[in-house]
Every structure is written in structure tokens, then in C-alpha cells.
């Protein structure tokens, strides 16, 4: 395939600053040179390209939108473009950076003590430590308020009990941000790898996100010191605020996956001939699919860009992010399906990136707030009635 030059039907690039374009170009070069050549094998073999972690740190991709402890201090749009280009390579790679930045570094920086920040932020930024985020439980996905993991005070420390699952980077993590019920409401705890009573095990048999580690965490009378609790986060809005950050990144990231599918299908349809040597792109049904995709990608780009500008003005709220995440993931998944269709039988092979993106996007549709739940958040915003309660 020819070198990827971006998808910009509506001259949206003209709304981006020189820095924003440079961020995109730099990440695109990195993804093309360092990730694209090996991602198919990683996906086949079910492994994350671990050797990239120090490089991702060096380039400033962890906590890129945070502005402390040497983080890059990117604007929201710059951060979004980073996510887009990473997910153009693979959703698993974007997930790794999302979790590290939005779900681990963000809560430590926002809710942590000075000691917690000093200890973890530099290591998490460079990638010398990996983090994970433990909120979801086997019985509580969309309804985290029902969580059964508990923390009780004992002898000046805390004792944690419970189980977390669907945890990206779980077994790879040096530090887990674990959310647990206390008599005082839901609180966050930093649990280090190797703490007695804390174990992880990987989930096997995934047909999606195969280039990403997904684990369960078990806490059995796991004792952590009082200093392990995040002092600034009290109640469910702590973890939910982290998820809003991560979902914002997903809203951008999936545009990258959609672009990769669309561009693959567009180029294929021009090269592939059928019926008297005509390119299949000359057929009306093929053009209609390409027209649908480019239109939806363009709308998704505008939605993401607008949300990014709002975020920098402090005006983006969680109900906006729900629309961004839900719309753009649905769009990307449909683009993957249409692109597969255009490639015919060739589309099912892993020579093309399409099935990989499609399978990944099934996860992205569900995690960080399912499509349904985000619909209900939007529904609540426009009716004032919460349908999920």
C-alpha cells in the first residue's frame, strides 16, 4: 500500500495549527516505521510489542496531555491526534497509552499525594513502570456503583478483598489503581505488583485486542499501607472522571482505525479489476460505500475536533464525550465492515488490517462505557430522565 497521507476530504487540516500538524506527522512516522511492520505478527501471536514501551515513553506518548513531571503538556487536539495515529496502527497500542496516561497517570496526578506523584509519575512517564486501572468486576460492568471489592481499615493500613476483570495491562503492570468500597464510599488505592494477596492472571481466547494484555486481578486479604490510598478521590466520580479522559481519547483514536480501513478499501477498489478489466471503484455500489465512509469519517473528525477545542476551553462535559465516543466507535466499526466487504475474500485475510481493526473495535464499542450506556447518558441529557437507574 502507498504511504498513508491522511484522510482529509473537507480541508479540516486547515483548522489545525502548525504544532498540531507536526504532532500528527511525527506520530504517523513512528507508527508507520516502528509499529506497522510488526503489528500483524503481534496480533497473530497474541502479544503486545513490549519492546516499544521505552520508546513510547521517550517520545512523550504517556500522559501526553498532562503538564507536570516532564509530561509533554499537549493540547487536547494534539493529544487526540496522537491517539488517532496510534489507533491507525492498532487499538491495542492506543489502549496501552490510554490506560497508562488517562487511567493511571491522570488519577495519580489529580488525586494522589505528593509522595505518590513523586514516586510514580516519572516512572510512568518514561515507561519504566506500567500501570493498570481496576474498576470493572465480573458482576459489575456498566454499573460500577455495585462493586463488591472492599477495603477495610486495619492497624493503620487497609485490607483489600475482591476481584477485578477486563483489566488492560493487568499482568504487565507494576502498579494497579484499584477502586474499592469503604465505609466512607468508593476510594482508589495504589497496589504494587508483588504485594502479598494481590495476583493477576491473563484472559486467554480473546478474538479481539490480541495485541494487548487483558487480565483479571484478585485481591485476597491484600494489605496496603494507609499511604496507598489516593487522598483526593472520594466516591464514584473519581474513577468516572478518569474514564471521561480515556473516552475522549477513544473518540479520536477510532478515527485512525476507520481511516486505515477506508484507505485500504479505497486503494484496493481502484486497483482491483473485474468485468472487462474495469476497476471495481467504477461500480456505483462500491462508490456508494466509499462515499458513506468518507462522509462519516469527516463528520467524526469534526465532532472530535470540536470536542477537543471545547475541552481546552474547559467546556467539555461527560455527556458530550458520550456522544463523541459512541458516534465515532459506531462509525469506525461500520467502516471496517464496509471495507471488508469491498475487499471481498481478500478482506478476511490478515494481510489487510481490516479484520484486525474490526475485531478490535468490537471491544472498543463495549469498553469504557458501552454503546448502550452512552446512548442513555445522551438520553438523560435531553430528557432529564436517567433510564439506567
Amino acid at each position, binding site marked *: 500500500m*502507498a*504511504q498513508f*497521507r491522511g484522510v482529509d476530504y473537507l480541508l479540516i487540516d486547515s483548522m489545525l495549527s*502548525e*504544532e498540531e*500538524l*507536526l*504532532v500528527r*506527522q*511525527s506520530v504517523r*512516522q*513512528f507508527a508507520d516505521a516502528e509499529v506497522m511492520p510488526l503489528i500483524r505478527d503481534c496480533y497473530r501471536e497474541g502479544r503486545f510489542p513490549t519492546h516499544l514501551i521505552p520508546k513510547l515513553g*521517550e*517520545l*512523550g*506518548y504517556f500522559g*501526553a496531555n498532562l503538564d507536570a513531571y*516532564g509530561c*509533554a*503538556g*499537549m493540547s487536547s487536539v*494534539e493529544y487526540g491526534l*496522537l491517539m488517532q495515529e496510534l489507533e491507525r496502527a492498532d487499538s491495542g497500542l492506543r489502549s496501552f497509552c490510554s490506560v497508562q496516561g488517562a487511567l493511571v497517570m491522570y488519577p495519580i496526578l489529580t488525586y494522589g499525594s505528593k509522595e505518590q506523584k513523586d514516586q510514580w509519575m516519572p516512572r510512568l512517564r518514561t515507561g519504566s513502570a506500567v500501570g493498570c486501572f481496576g474498576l470493572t468486576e465480573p458482576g459489575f460492568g456498566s454499573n460500577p456503583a455495585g462493586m463488591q471489592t472492599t477495603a477495610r481499615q486495619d492497624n493503620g493500613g487497609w485490607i483489600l478483598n475482591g476481584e477485578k476483570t477486563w483489566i488492560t495491562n493487568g499482568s504487565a503492570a507494576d502498579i494497579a489503581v484499584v477502586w474499592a468500597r469503604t465505609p466512607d464510599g468508593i476510594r482508589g488505592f495504589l497496589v504494587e505488583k508483588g504485594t502479598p494477596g494481590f495476583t493477576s492472571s491473563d484472559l486467554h481466547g480473546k478474538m479481539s485486542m490480541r495485541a494487548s494484555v487483558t487480565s483479571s486481578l484478585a485481591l485476597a486479604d491484600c494489605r496496603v499501607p494507609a499511604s496507598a490510598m489516593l487522598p483526593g478521590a472520594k466516591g464514584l466520580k473519581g474513577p468516572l472522571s478518569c474514564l471521561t479522559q480515556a473516552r475522549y481519547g477513544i473518540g479520536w483514536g477510532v478515527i485512525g482505525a476507520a481511516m486505515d480501513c477506508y484507505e485500504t478499501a479505497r486503494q484496493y477498489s481502484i486497483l482491483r479489476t473485474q468485468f472487462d478489466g474495469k476497476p471495481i471503484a467504477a461500480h456505483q455500489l462500491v462508490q456508494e460505500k466509499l462515499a458513506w465512509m468518507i462522509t462519516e469519517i469527516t463528520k467524526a473528525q469534526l465532532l472530535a475536533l470540536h470536542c477537543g477545542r471545547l475541552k481546552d476551553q474547559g467546556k467539555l462535559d461527560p455527556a458530550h464525550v458520550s456522544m463523541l465516543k459512541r458516534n465515532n466507535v459506531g462509525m469506525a466499526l461500520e467502516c471496517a465492515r464496509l471495507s471488508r466487504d469491498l475487499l471481498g475474500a481478500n478482506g478476511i485475510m490478515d494481510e489487510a488490517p481490516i479484520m484486525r481493526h474490526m475485531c478490535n473495535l468490537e471491544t472498543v464499542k463495549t469498553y469504557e462505557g458501552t454503546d448502550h450506556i452512552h446512548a442513555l447518558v445522551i438520553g438523560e441529557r435531553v430528557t432529564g430522565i436517567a433510564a439506567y437507574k
Partner: protein
Amino acid sequence: MKILAAIKQVPARDSQLRVNDSGTWIEEPDTSEINEPDAYALEEALQLREKAGGEVVALCAGPESASQTIREALAKGADRAIHIEDDDLGRFDSLGIARILAAAAATEQPDLILTGLQSDDLGFGQTGVILAELLGMAHATIIMKVEPRGTGIRVKRELEDGWFQNTDLPLPAVLTIQSGINKLRYATLMGIKKAKLKEVRKLTASGLGVAVEPSVRLERVFMPQRTKQTRMIEGSVRDQAAALVEALRHEVRVL
């Protein structure tokens, strides 16, 4: 060591090129990028600074939009930049461009000037060499390797037929760098942020006292013209074969 990295912005390699209305050059392309050999010259400059200390100054003549390429150089680690801003550099020939660059370089008194061995758009391969002559500096072309050595440098030049030449040069010197001699770095996000704060000195050709007096003029730019001719070869099969071989050997020169 103070190193100038002379870089040029050129149309991106697979951009759609359109000849301008007057047929003298191309319209400004949708996407531009740093001239490839210049990217390696900049990288070499940054690596030399990491080894020997000093400063790297990016030097670029080009339209306002070349600020994108300058910003990339700053993001990758150049300490500051000089932008000789001109929307119509096509008025100058290689000598004129080299005069502009030389006048700007003279304000810096560099120890070393690195630039690509040629540009991806015009491909004359002259600017670096003329620049050295104008500044009265030693120069070497098609450089594969640069090492500081005493008060000078040792360089490895690519010759033809797989031969190389290792030679010592005094400083100050101008080197034209071959593509692919090092591994290009990516701009880090921190670097991109820092680049906003770095100095970009703006100059103009007239401000530098360089007049437009080209001795070489670009006559016409046009797309390769496709021609298709069919010639029927008459005669016996033996004569036809002989005529065909003759034509392939001496006219088409493929045999």
C-alpha cells in the same frame, strides 16, 4: 562546535504536482516535507552536537509555509533557526540561492555547515558546493560519515562503483550529506512543545543585499509527454527479424 544545518522544504514525494499557469514552476503543493538528504544532514548535525557539544542552527530559505519544516527541525533538537523568507525563490538560480545562504551564514561564523547533497525537487546538487566557494571554506561532497578529529574533521565520501574515500578537512567546512547515513529521529512531543519557544530569526534576500541576477533561467516546466509510434516492418520474415533486431539494438537500445 557551531553547526549550521541548511535545509529546504520540497513537495512531499507522492503529492500531486501541478505546473503553474506561466509554465515556469509548480504550484505550491498540498503537502510539503523536508528535503530527504537535508533531513540526514540535520540528524548528523544533532549527533555531532551530542558528541562534541556546541550549537545547531537550522538555516532555511523558502516561503512562509517553510516554517513547518523549520519547526520540525527545532522540534527534533536544533537550538534555533534562521528563515530567509521569500515567496518566489525561483527568481534565483543556484548561485543566487547560495549567495543568500552564504550571506546569512556569514552572520553566524559557523565551524561546520551540513546540507543535503541535492534537493529532491530541482536536483542540481550545486548549492552546497557553491556555498563553500562563496564562504571560502573547505568542502567535501556525498558524505557518509563525519568524525571530529583534532581541530578538523575526518569524513568518508562515497565514490563511484562501491569505492569510498576517507579524508581529513580543516574547519570551517561545508559538507553535503548523502541520504541514509544515520537513523532519523522522531520529533518527541516534548520537543514539539519546546520548539514554540525557540528563536527563529527572519531575514530577506534584499535585506542580505543579494540581488536577483540569474545567469541560469528555468525555461519551461512540463509533464513528461507521452508519445506512441507504431512502425510496421515490411519484407520477408528473415528481413523483418533483422530489421527488428537492428531497431532494438541501435534505436531503442534495449539489446
